[in-house]
């Protein structure tokens, strides 16, 4: 097991991403941050806080539970649903930034795109991820990446955030870890 990102690494990555978002979107007027629970939601809140500190304006934030849109429901046991918190002002015509912790096969993001489609019609959808570990199974790419982490398929990437895990770090564990 190795530490891929320390707390300091995570903090710097998020700071950089928040600047990149502002740069690319010309400010935070039109953006809506939508975090994918569980840890994507915490990350989106952190990004929102960072952006608000920079621009001194409130940023619209929400969460998007994608469970009902997954394409692998039949292959796994049932999962409980997590509340979807709609952002103030909705997503119609906005630039939605999906936020997730680990970007892997891309299926979660595909489901998120479907779920967004049912909420309305954004002007654009962008993707921010803390860790991109490769092995895409769908033609989807991220716009903002905290760290590119090459992995083998069987390895396990564990993201821990202080809001829920008590500490900030990203761990890379060998095949067979739970």
């Amino acid at each position, binding site marked *: 097991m190795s530490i891929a990102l320390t707390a300091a690494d995570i903090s710097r990555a998020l700071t950089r991403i928040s600047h990149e978002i502002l740069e690319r979107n010309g400010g935070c007027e039109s953006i809506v941050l939508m975090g994918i629970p569980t840890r994507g939601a915490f990350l989106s809140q952190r990004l929102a806080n960072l952006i608000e500190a920079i621009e001194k304006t409130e940023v619209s934030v929400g969460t998007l539970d994608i469970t009902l849109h997954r394409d692998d429901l039949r292959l*796994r046991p049932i*999962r*409980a649903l997590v509340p979807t918190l709609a952002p103030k002002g909705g997503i119609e015509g906005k630039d939605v930034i999906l936020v997730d912790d680990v970007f892997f096969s891309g299926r979660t993001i595909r489901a998120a795109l479907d779920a967004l489609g049912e909420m309305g019609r954004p002007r654009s959808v962008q993707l921010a991820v803390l860790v991109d570990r490769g092995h895409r199974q769908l033609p989807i790419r991220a716009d903002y990446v905290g760290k590119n982490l090459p992995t083998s398929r069987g390895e396990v990437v564990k993201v821990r955030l202080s809001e829920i895990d008590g500490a900030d770090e990203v761990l890379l564990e060998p095949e067979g870890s739970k």
Partner: protein
Amino acid sequence: MKHLLSASDLSYTEALTILDTAAQMARVSDGPIKKLPTLRGRTIVNLFFEDSTRTRISFEAAAKRLSADVINFSAKGSSVSKGESLKDTAQTLQAMGADAVIIRHSASGAPQRLADSEWTSGVVINAGDGTHEHPTQALLDAFTIRKHLKVGVGDLSGLTIAIVGDILHSRVARSNVILLSLLGAQVILVAPPTLLPLGVENWPAQISYDLDAILPHIDAVMMLRVQQERMNDFFFPTAREYSHYFGLNSDRLALLKKSAIIMHPGPMNRGLEITAACADSARSVIVEQVANGVSVRMAVLYLLLAGAPNENVESGEILS
């Protein structure tokens, strides 16, 4: 939990999960696009041996909002009315590939016979069997109560709920007594002694013959339909006397707490167990119960059908 045959099939955690999931499903129904792809490709059969437009439509809407295919089978005019048995009907549906069968039947225990037999391998959901149970009705009742009296969160502890009417013949009453008490509510059954079953003192509910005495103390009153035909079997002397003692009217409405709500599973006998004024009053949530029925049934279908067959546990998270 493979089937939903009785409210007693649910644990406390499972019941809350259904209510929480139903709240999520309600948001779908409020959104612009009332459709989810979750049960795409699944076939759900509505096997209704008893007439019931309301419940059947509710299940049909729930299934369709989850993108399932729905086949409606109603007994009238079908081969059942010509004498085909439950067994043969079930085997026919199985041959057509039903993933779930939602069954309403006039015989208590018919859904369990279906579930225990080898006539169908799908999930069986009880939509009302004889005078036995109607678990999704109890779930939507609990959902409605929670929404109004508990801001839509948690269980029903601290609440007192009265169920009034023909308890003896009511499957809605049986399921509600089980579920509402499981969720922490106090249940009071109010009926003439003839309409209370033997052994009801062992149910997790109190009994009263005096509606006026209990009304000021309850948070929700659920009126049950009373059939006129019961007079012919000597359950009560006249409709007039029944209404006088057990009907909800404007005088009794005034006895209720300001926050109390009025419920009825429908269909109503306006004038017998409930007056029009009460049914249409601001305190009545009767119409909303119907809408909540769709969300609750969506939750039940999702939780029973969406996952891998026969495996409904994810690390102790939900269904155990």
